[in-house]
């Protein structure tokens, strides 16, 4: 089998340029394998949503190769869409219909027979824990419930591939965890997911494979663990100083770590062993206001690759 047949989404030199000349996606290559959760990580404006929209056949490809479920979005958009589930960044539930009607009507757009639609609607409402709200209107639902309903709606056609554009943006922590748990369930059932996010924890929790996008390009690729191993050290020592100490550091930290990142409120020292580095800081008698040792995360990878933090 060729590469293209093994991957559900295959992109080479994929480019999106808008009518105003802005290049949102600039020649990216990636492959989404079946049964995996594939993540696009990057700050706002990195080109994640434009990439998603091309995969979902709702925005034409400007240049390059793109195949989705073995088909060409340029000529087979309708067939591709019938096998996709899409969770858009901004909810587009039908606020004039009830919760149940939203799913049943959506099933009709896919030409799913009524009896099948009713059965799937029941199952999915239970899956996203909204069965008790079936007869309610959409508007009074909380943000988390609306997102869950949108996810249920995206599953109504039993899709081969589910595309989720920033699924938890704007939700409170509890709602996010509930949503992650449902997505994790979905993964265990063997679904292929494509997720965009600008939350590192979300990417680490859900994604088997990640690409980091910045300024329309892919800047790194791999599993969350691989990315951290490749682009960061095992541990990070975070130091905070009083303003007076901070202004007079004059390179006193030099040589203590593989790399030092100076943020507005703290210094990050990238090192294999944070405790030992902290000992050395103390040996040099630098007055530290507070110190924290933690493992490297995707945030550090991102900082390293782009020179800025992910959520600004």
């Amino acid at each position, binding site marked *: 089998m060729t590469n293209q047949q093994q991957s559900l989404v295959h992109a080479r030199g994929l480019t999106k340029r808008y009518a105003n000349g802005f290049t949102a996606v600039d020649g990216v290559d990636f492959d989404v394998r079946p049964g995996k959760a594939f993540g696009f990580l990057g700050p706002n404006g990195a080109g994640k949503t434009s990439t998603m929209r091309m995969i979902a056949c709702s925005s034409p490809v400007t240049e390059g190769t793109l195949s989705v479920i073995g088909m060409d979005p340029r000529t087979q958009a*309708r067939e591709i869409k019938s096998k996709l589930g899409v969770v*858009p960044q901004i909810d*587009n539930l039908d*606020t004039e219909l009830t919760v149940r009607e939203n799913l049943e009507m959506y099933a009709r*757009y896919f030409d799913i027979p009524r009896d099948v639609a009713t059965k799937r609607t029941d199952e999915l409402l239970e899956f996203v824990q909204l069965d008790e709200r079936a007869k309610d209107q959409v508007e009074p639902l909380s943000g988390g419930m609306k997102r869950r309903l949108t996810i249920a709606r995206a599953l109504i056609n039993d899709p081969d591939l589910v595309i989720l554009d920033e699924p938890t943006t704007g939700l409170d922590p509890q709602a996010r965890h509930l949503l992650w748990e449902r997505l994790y369930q979905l993964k265990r059932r063997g679904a292929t997911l494509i997720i965009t996010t600008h939350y590192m924890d979300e990417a680490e929790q859900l994604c088997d494979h990640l690409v980091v996008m910045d300024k329309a390009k892919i800047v790194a690729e791999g599993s969350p663990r691989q990315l951290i191993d490749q682009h960061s050290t095992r541990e990070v020592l975070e130091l905070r100083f009083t303003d007076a100490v901070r202004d007079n550091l004059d390179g006193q930290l030099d040589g203590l770590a593989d790399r030092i990142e100076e943020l507005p409120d703290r210094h990050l020292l990238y090192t294999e062993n944070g405790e030992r580095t902290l000992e050395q800081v103390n040996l040099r008698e630098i007055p530290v206001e507070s110190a924290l040792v933690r493992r490297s995360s995707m945030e550090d990878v991102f900082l390293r690759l782009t020179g800025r933090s992910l959520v600004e």
Partner: protein
Amino acid sequence: MTVLAASGRVWQRNWLVYKRLWHRSLAFGFLQPVLFLTAMGIGIGALLTPSSLEAFGGVPYIDWLGPGLLAAMAMQTATFESTYPIMNRIMWGRNYEAMLSTPVGIRSIVLGELGWTAFRIGSLAAVFLVVLALFGIVRTPLAVLAVPFATLVGVAFAACLIAFTATQKNDVGFSAIFRFVINPLFLFSGTFFPLTNLPEPLRAVAWATPLFHGVELIRGSVLDQLDPVTAPLHLAYLLIMFGVGAWFAERTLTRRMAG
């Protein structure tokens, strides 16, 4: 799923929303012509002298006015339905975005919405015709043609306005459309007074505008005055308007939705 079947689903979605309030909509559709005909037909009509009635082709003013109002209702309702609600489905409620993630395409959306307008205007026109019959205005069984004629007026306007709405970034343009297009057409299309009362250049303008043709067809069918020579011309005007409007609607909506 064919384009036509998918457009049926778009239609069905509107029906699902509408079926909760159809009785209210039709009751309103009944009441409004009753009020208008009472106020304008009986009230104003009573002031007209027999000699001035000649301008109306020798029929009582209310008989002349009623079918004109039916045509105007078709235009106004279709226009309203094709501005704010369509804008909602494009922008505020994002219904089309959701539909376009499914096998439903732009052409099906346009056809489904126009089919929906046809149903809405058709049912309102049928109610209106009943009112005309109750007022004793209907002269011939051919009057039932007023329903398809009014429906044609409705979809012709709806097609053009969907094309317009798809180009708008906010609803500011809509009040301009109502003020500078719909209201003048309402007043100067031979709805309330014969065009022969207008000065010659204005009369030519009125002939070129769409509502006039709808008024002629509907009045002709209700009062049994359809002219075999001019009626096909009026019909052709509205059919062409519908076709051109629908073609543009698909283009502008495609441009709007697929960036």
